[in-house]
């Protein structure tokens, strides 16, 4: 065998031996197997184009938020307040529209507002060297309290037919939330994989000290990922408001669990340094498919909770195993 024959085989071996790719592949295969199982068990109801598009629409909000939180988690941080931000975004948006702001401008302002809020949160975490877990846990309460008091505990209705299309409309056969999520995913993946900023995000998560020593402004990176997440969560909150015909101060409760589960299932490490947008997408579909499939099959609610918890547990075990292989 000569050297030229060996090179492609070596490259293939490297590709197969890459734990991150293997985990992604593993999760993707698991999703396919799950889908086949649900299709057979539901006598085809699960795999109808209408139902698959329904699942896609349901997970689109998770994907949009998940893209932002993936950036945060790759840097070794976490954000537990996203559910509360969803509610706050909806209330902000609804009130802006009520004040006569054109809906498209209200969406942009909501994204800017949440980005600004997360700028503050990111700055506190980065500059004060505080643990993101604790800071975002505090923000979970603060943001929820603001949403509830601003709305008086009641939903703020949005009577704008054009805006409603964001949550319930279609472009051809594709739900608009799915298109929004797809655009966010493509941009997020490009930024993470093809830009210097993306490389710096991985570097900070992989080894912050080394990244700092090599001249990377790690504080700026950490603040930036929180800002990105804030803007995307603001956008997701607008899509949610479109689905619910209102800004709801109780929306998004427990949502952070679904988001983090999706991201971890998709291969992003809880300790930072690894992760991908594609993984988050697959993870979100996994969580969404489980919710949808178990409901279609009429599985008792208590068993549904157990199933979801077991999936998250398995995802964390796989995460640990992957790190040990590296």
């Amino acid at each position, binding site marked *: 065998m000569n050297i030229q024959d060996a090179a492609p085989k070596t490259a293939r071996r490297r590709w197969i031996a890459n734990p991150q790719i293997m985990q992604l592949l593993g999760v993707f295969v698991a999703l396919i197997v799950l889908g086949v199982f649900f299709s057979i068990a539901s006598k085809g109801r699960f795999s109808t184009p209408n139902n698959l598009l329904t699942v896609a629409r349901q997970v689109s909000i998770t994907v949009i938020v998940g893209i932002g939180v993936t950036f945060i988690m790759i840097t070794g941080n976490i954000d537990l307040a996203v559910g509360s931000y969803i509610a706050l975004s909806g209330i902000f948006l609804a009130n802006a529209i009520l004040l006569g702001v054109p809906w498209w401008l209200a969406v942009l302002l909501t994204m800017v507002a949440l980005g600004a809020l997360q700028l503050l949160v990111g700055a506190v975490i980065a500059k004060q060297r505080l643990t993101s877990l604790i800071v975002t846990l505090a923000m979970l309460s603060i943001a929820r309290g603001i949403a509830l008091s601003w709305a008086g505990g009641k939903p703020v209705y949005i009577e704008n037919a054009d805006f409603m299309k964001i949550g319930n409309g279609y472009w051809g056969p594709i739900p608009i939330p799915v298109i929004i999520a797809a655009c966010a995913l493509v941009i997020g993946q490009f930024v993470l994989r093809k830009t210097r900023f993306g490389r710096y995000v991985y570097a900070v998560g992989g080894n912050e000290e080394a990244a700092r020593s090599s001249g990377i402004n790690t504080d700026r990176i950490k603040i930036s990922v929180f800002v990105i997440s804030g803007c995307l969560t603001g956008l997701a909150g607008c899509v949610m408001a479109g689905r619910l015909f209102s800004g709801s101060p109780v929306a*998004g409760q427990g949502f952070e669990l679904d988001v983090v589960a999706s991201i971890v299932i998709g291969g992003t490490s809880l300790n930072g340094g690894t992760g991908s947008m594609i993984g988050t997408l697959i993870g979100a579909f996994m969580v969404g498919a489980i919710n949808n499939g178990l*409901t279609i099959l009429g599985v008792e609610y208590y068993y549904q909770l157990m199933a979801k918890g077991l999936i998250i547990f398995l995802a964390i075990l796989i995460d640990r195993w992957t790190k040990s292989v590296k």
Partner: protein
Amino acid sequence: MKKFLAVFLVLIVAASFSLMAAPKVGVVQITLEHEYQIILHQGYIDKAKAMGAEVTFAITEMSPEKTVTAAENLIAGGAQAIICAPGDPASWEAVLAMCKEKGVYILNDGSPQPEGPDHVAFIGTKSYSGGQKAGEFAVKWINKSLPKSTKVVVAHLTLPTFTDCVQRNKGFEDYLKANMKRPYEIYSEQGMGSRQGGLTAMENLLQAHPDINVLFGCNDDSALGGMSAMMAAGKKDAENLVIGFDGALKGFEEIMKGGMFRCDIAQQPYLYAGMLMERAVKLITGKAKLATYVKEGTILIDTPVVTAANAKEWYDKYAKLMPKK
């Protein structure tokens, strides 16, 4: 000719089988972590079985976005009618629009919403008048049991994000305002609708107002939690009153014990579930028209007042309805 007849007969038989397929009803419930909801759940199962219908459930944990997701999933699963308890009025609107678009019947199981020609209106509890009945019991007990020299200090535990609870507290407060001839003070605190929440809220209230001697909880869980705080503070049974709302077995047990928990305003979830399921199945099978039920409008069912005189009877009745495992 014979072949044609054979094929024709097979088609007729196949068509008749498809017509005979069991009607499928989807039910969106807010939680299964509460006795009321468990009895409601059992009521749906039992009535569906009795009518030969299939029923599937989705639980929303009182989340508005999960309400919408739940309805979508149930419709995707083949439900021809959705019985829905929305997390909030806005999610009701979203589910209503979805069912209209998909041609699926929708029935309201949550709380009174604006009526319309496109759905079966709410069937449930008269929450406001139930709250008033709690107020009536409180006033009678106060006048009978508390000496005129004793200060009357009333606490009520609320759950502002749940419309029914808001109505119960309002009914209670309004009755006191209109009928309490003695001076009294009244304080409220958010009890989260849970025992843990009720306990914490009442502990805090007792810190600020140690002479509270009457407690109304917007549901039994918060009332029972609040009662724990009163007992821990050394309050005597004879000098204090706790009233609950729901008709939980634990509430009836406490009444039978003869302590400070003396009254429970009972809901009748098994009855509502039966009525709603019957309507859903009749609509699907064509045995009733939507317009008939639309004309009925909102049906609010009265709340029995459970006290020491009838607690055993209600306990036995509801204990039978709890699912047997």
